[in-house]
């Protein structure tokens, strides 16, 4: 190398570590660094707060209202919303706010019960399908196809035809209809995890097949379950209240939101409040679950199929 006539006469003795090392620390932000944890935009905080409130209401509705949802004052039928009755009263003089608050229990309960059924069966089948056996995968996937070919509402109607109306039966029906949703996502997640380097190379660290499965595969698959559950429970509540609206679920005088809306339909000409507030409750609940579910999904980005 020839000397450049413009270079400084003194010896430059900086080490690369000083220069390149420091560059690495500051400007060279590796493109793969993902900030872990949830972001906290205002939407998320509002939604999460609403869900907490919902849970509290479901556990103790009497904290929020003194009225009995089932008995009404016949002298106060169809009163418009007022300070005394913030949501008004219905045809039998029952306080609509109280019924809406108590109704939280039913929607959440039936929704969660249905999800539990879907999750239990869906996870089991999904993991089985995602394992090595191609035959098992085909069989389970066809099973999912069959189950999902029956629209949820109609499947529920079939179940109710055979088993009768009521909360438990529609929970079961909704649960069965929801199995493919869980199952397919869990299946994809299982395949993703099994193909990941930390699983395919785990034998190097002296782990046997069952240890690898229990320690690395299963936990990383199950991580997806609460995320799926939160995303889909909104839809489940929609279907449940729809079925109740049709009269297939809990029967009057149960203050379930779908039932309340069914009762309100004939009153629309004279009273708007029995038809608005229960529906608002359903909508807000579903929105809240969707927002929280979406935020959960974002925070696990990259680890989920």
């Amino acid at each position, binding site marked *: 190398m020839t000397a450049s006539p413009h270079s400084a006469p003194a010896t430059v003795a900086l080490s690369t570590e000083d220069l390149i090392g420091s560059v690495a620390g500051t400007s060279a932000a590796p493109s793969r660094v993902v900030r872990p944890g949830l972001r906290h935009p205002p939407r998320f905080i509002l939604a999460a707060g609403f869900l907490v409130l919902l849970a509290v209401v479901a556990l103790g509705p009497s904290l929020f209202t003194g009225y009995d949802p089932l008995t009404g004052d016949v002298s106060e039928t169809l009163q418009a919303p007022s300070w005394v009755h913030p949501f008004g009263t219905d045809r039998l003089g029952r306080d609509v706010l109280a019924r809406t608050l108590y109704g939280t229990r039913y929607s959440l309960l039936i929704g969660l019960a249905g999800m539990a059924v879907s999750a239990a069966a869906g996870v089991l089948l999904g993991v089985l399908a995602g394992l090595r056996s191609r035959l098992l995968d085909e069989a389970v996937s066809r099973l999912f196809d069959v189950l999902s070919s029956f629209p949820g509402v109609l499947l529920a109607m079939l179940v109710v035809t055979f088993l009768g109306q009521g909360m438990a039966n529609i929970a079961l029906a909704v649960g069965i209809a929801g199995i493919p949703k869980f199952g397919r996502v869990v299946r994809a997640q299982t395949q993703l995890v099994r193909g990941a380097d930390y699983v395919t190379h785990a034998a190097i660290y002296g782990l046997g097949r069952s240890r690898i499965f229990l320690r690395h595969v299963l936990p990383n698959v199950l991580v997806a379950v609460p995320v799926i559950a939160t995303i889909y429970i909104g839809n489940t509540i929609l279907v449940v*209240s729809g079925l109740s609206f049709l009269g*297939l679920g809990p029967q009057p005088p149960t203050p379930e939101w779908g039932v309340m809306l069914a009762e309100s339909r004939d009153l*629309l000409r004279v009273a708007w409040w029995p038809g608005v507030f229960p529906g608002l409750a359903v909508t807000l609940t579903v929105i809240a679950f969707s927002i929280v579910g979406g935020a959960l999904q974002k925070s696990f980005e990259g680890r989920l199929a």
Partner: protein
Amino acid sequence: MPARHLTLRILSRLATSLVVAWASVTATFVALHALPGRIEDILAGDVDFPGLREAIAAEWGLDRSLPAQYVDFLFRLAHGDFGTSYVLRRPVIEVVGSQLRPTVELALAAGLLAVLLAGGLALATAGRGRLARGLASSLELVAASTPVFWLGILLLMAFSFSLRWFPVAGAKSWNALVLPAIALALPTAGLLAQVLRESMEKTLNQPFVTTVRARGVGETAIRTRHVLRHALLPAVTLGGWLIGGLLGGAVITEKVFGRPGLGTVTLGAVLTHDVPVVLAVVLLAALIHVAASTLLDILYLLIDPRLRAV
């Protein structure tokens, strides 16, 4: 070579759908026979009159062996014979057939409307300014979270009872289709728009879009010529589920608006335990769903050439 692969994939998809259709039918048969109680009682439902049980046994061939009954079941289904409704005392096919049209009208109208709304909204707002996107995604969220029956009630209150623009019940005129179609379409549109927009925005961040921009292609052309195809893929996958949702939602919508159709028929059948009718409707819906999913999957294969490779 590629054409042959494509044909093979299509054929294999068709074969799968036949298997699924068969399996759905078989599942219903098994469910029917697996229930506790005598089949005659289950099929009879809420009615009873002398000679009923014998008539049922004769029609359904209940004295024969189970496999023979199964074959007979398949055979009759293939010929469109769904048995007789003992509650209504008419062949099921007649009961269902007469009420099919209003429901199909409703489902088609709602489906079309949903696709147009969702497509338009997603195309217009994907990747554009933050305000537009935020607004659109909030709209979509609310629409997708609103129960169909509540939406119907709200629409009735606003447009039928207050403004009196549309009839309150029935299906006598085109007017009567408007509100139910809107009520059914909006939640579906919300969901579809969410999926479309998300996938459009994901696609807009792909490197190949930068390459296309560097060729001087304008933003709108980028979306219609390149991004739309990519964005359709997840929407197509969702399509089957959406159609199922439309069919189920039609049932609910018919009740809200007092519209005649399969929904009313089925609901009545459920409440009177008229099993043959419910069975028929459910099977019909399932088969429609299978057919639609198959068509959509084939569409997917046609759009995405990467799947045609071995």
